């Protein structure tokens, strides 16, 4: 009975007793969730356009952030370095299209997936060769990202809002909004959807597959850069950051691999869910549950919606 009390009653009693901590946990979860959503968005964009699960998205986050910080350390002004990092992501998109995707057109998806594995390890090695393996500090001040904390007396306690977290949430939200509009309302967006449905049909109506792939990989590169700046500002830029990209997997399982709103809602559910789980139920098993809890949450959703929250329901006639 005691264990049942600890699982089903005690956490909720504690939530009621310390609502400030509940609010703080929800806030931390939302911020993490928005950042997870941003990483997941990179996966979704590429999956929509080419049906490829881009394993390299995580290292693209690190690589883009390292280019930015590395250039700044070489004396390039911050905003020029930012521009050059964007340019580098465009070059990467073009190179990937030319060297990896184009030669593999019409190959099974698993081959393309394996190619992104190769790309990942190439970028890790190339990145370490150029920038070294040491962690670097994000150039938060030079990019005018806000610092400091606002402490608000709320619900009988104190809730701390990091200015950087607020900025991250706002920037990520704007970014997600712009991308959602771009890909749903513009001609390129419609072309992207056509490519996602069928490469052959898209080609037959004159859509350039190569051009779409470059655009989509470039967009995923920009998303990676923003995610790299925000995560880097929170906890430093190092190759360990690429592991955080794995957090996008449960987000994708939950939200669906092809849905931009799915990535956003999925990110928020996973972010908030894992923080609440770790904070209120983690101590029951000695902590450290958030790494697998995210997958449990995603799998629970899959029991009811196998295609994910917003994924396309695929009906194949036999």
């Amino acid at each position, binding site marked *: 009975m005691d264990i049942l009390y600890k699982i089903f009653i005690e956490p909720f009693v504690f939530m009621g007793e310390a609502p400030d901590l509940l609010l703080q946990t929800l806030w931390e979860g939302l911020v*993490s969730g928005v950042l997870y959503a941003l990483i997941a968005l990179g996966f979704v964009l590429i999956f929509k356009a080419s049906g490829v699960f881009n394993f390299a998205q995580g290292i693209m986050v690190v690589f883009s952030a390292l280019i930015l910080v590395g250039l700044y350390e070489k004396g390039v002004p911050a905003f020029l370095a930012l521009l050059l990092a964007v340019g580098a992501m465009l070059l990467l998109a073009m190179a990937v299209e030319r060297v990896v995707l184009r030669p593999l057109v019409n190959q099974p998806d698993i081959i393309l997936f394996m190619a992104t594995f190769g790309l990942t390890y190439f970028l890790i090695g190339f990145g370490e060769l150029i920038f070294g*393996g040491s962690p670097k500090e994000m150039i938060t001040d030079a990019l005018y990202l806000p610092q400091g904390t606002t402490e608000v007396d709320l619900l009988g306690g104190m809730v701390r809002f990091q200015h950087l977290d607020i900025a991250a949430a706002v920037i990520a939200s704007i970014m997600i909004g712009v991308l959602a509009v771009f890909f749903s309302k513009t001609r390129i967006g419609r072309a992207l959807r056509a490519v996602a449905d069928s490469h052959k049909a898209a080609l037959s109506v004159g859509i350039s597959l190569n051009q779409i792939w470059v655009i989509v990989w470039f967009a995923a590169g920009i998303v990676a850069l923003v995610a790299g700046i925000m995560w880097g500002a929170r*906890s430093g830029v190092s190759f360990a950051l690429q592991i955080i990209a794995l957090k996008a997997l449960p987000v994708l399982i939950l939200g669906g691999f092809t849905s931009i709103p799915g990535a956003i809602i999925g990110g928020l559910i996973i972010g908030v869910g894992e923080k609440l789980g770790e904070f209120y139920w983690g101590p029951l098993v000695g*902590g450290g549950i*958030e790494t697998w809890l995210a997958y449990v949450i995603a799998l629970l959703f899959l029991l009811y919606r196998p295609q994910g929250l917003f994924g396309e329901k695929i009906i194949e006639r036999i």
Partner: protein
Amino acid sequence: MSFRKLSLGLAVATLVGGAALPAFAQDSVYVPLFTYRTGPFAGSGIYIADGMHDYLQMLNERDGGIGGVKLALEECETGYDTKKGVECYESVKGKNPVVVNPWSTGITLPLIPRASVDKIPILSMAYGLSASARGDIFPWIFNPPATYWDGMSMIVKYIGEKEGGLEKLKGKTIGFLHLDAAFGKEPIPLLNELAKTYGFEVKLYPVAAQDMQNQSSQWLSVRRDRPDYMIMWGWGSMNGAAVKEAVRSGYPMDKFYSVWWPSEDDARAGGAGAKGFKMLNWHSVGADLPALKDIQKHVVDKGLSKAPKDSVGTLLYNRGVYNSLLIAEAIATAQKLTGKKVVTGEDVRRGMENIKLDPARLKELGLEGFTGGMELTCSDHNSHSPAFMQEWDGTKWVKISEPIQPMTEQVRAQLDAAAKDYAEKNPGWPKRTEACDKAS
């Protein structure tokens, strides 16, 4: 070129290349260095690797090696990955290494049973299995100058003294933020034992390797539990992220302690708010000593080092130097004991058991005041040496305590029990047959 010709060419190249390699075994002493310059732990690993390499390289350049014999140095990249570390071990063991430094508790553990079979001493400097300090049970394993259990006892002792006595810890809560891996879990048994003895409560905050840079949950829990003190057992990017999160969450930094692994970069990551963060250490920081100047002159200035000039003398660089100081002393002692110039792993094991670093010897080595004295013996492979507490002042580490002796009574009892337990749980664990030198 046909495939056949290409294959033939490759085979010839391999044979020619292979023939050039065994120079290691003939007229030099082969010292492999397990390092990690890549991966999530490279932030710590690079400094250590540079320090280890540069000290030994300096001996080669300045003195022609040790006792007139050159050291053949070779790095093997482990990425702090246990599997890769064991592969490194397998790849070097046929080249007659005189010692192996795994630089990871996770890698050390699977090497422990192999060492006595392969006759290769393992130096796990202030990491690895604490119980391996018992030379009578683990004749091939060395973990000086202090075990993780010693380190934990020193931190608890220091905190107790701050409170006005260890008995004042009763009713307090100590949070333990640790990497959720063999290394981070190693001191937990001792911490729990100390908690029982002194009546404080322990709260564990494990950090999975994939969440090293995503610690907001752990620090939310710290805010919930309000531990009176926090102790950290972190490595790689976990340390810097933890300092940042501690500052962000408003945890009082003067109550945040760490074992001896954070670097200057890690403390700096917390910005001005990191002031007051404390950690254990047992050697000096800085490059003013003659031996370190010689590294600069004979290695760094000549372009023989991978280290940038300004990293010589940093905390973890000097830690790597300390590690190589032990290797060099073990080799030199082995040469004295055996009368041989080109010593083997078995000789160096004896050398390790007879290392005696006292102020006079340190002065002779150009490292006066670098560290306290340390002596290993046949039965004590650790020395359980004291460490001091240092504090981050916003720009650099400042020594703030006299040497803190480990709580030997508590540690010893635990250590003996753990060593016995290890031998019992590994059927056929060999009884020590290696003779002890008179000197030890």
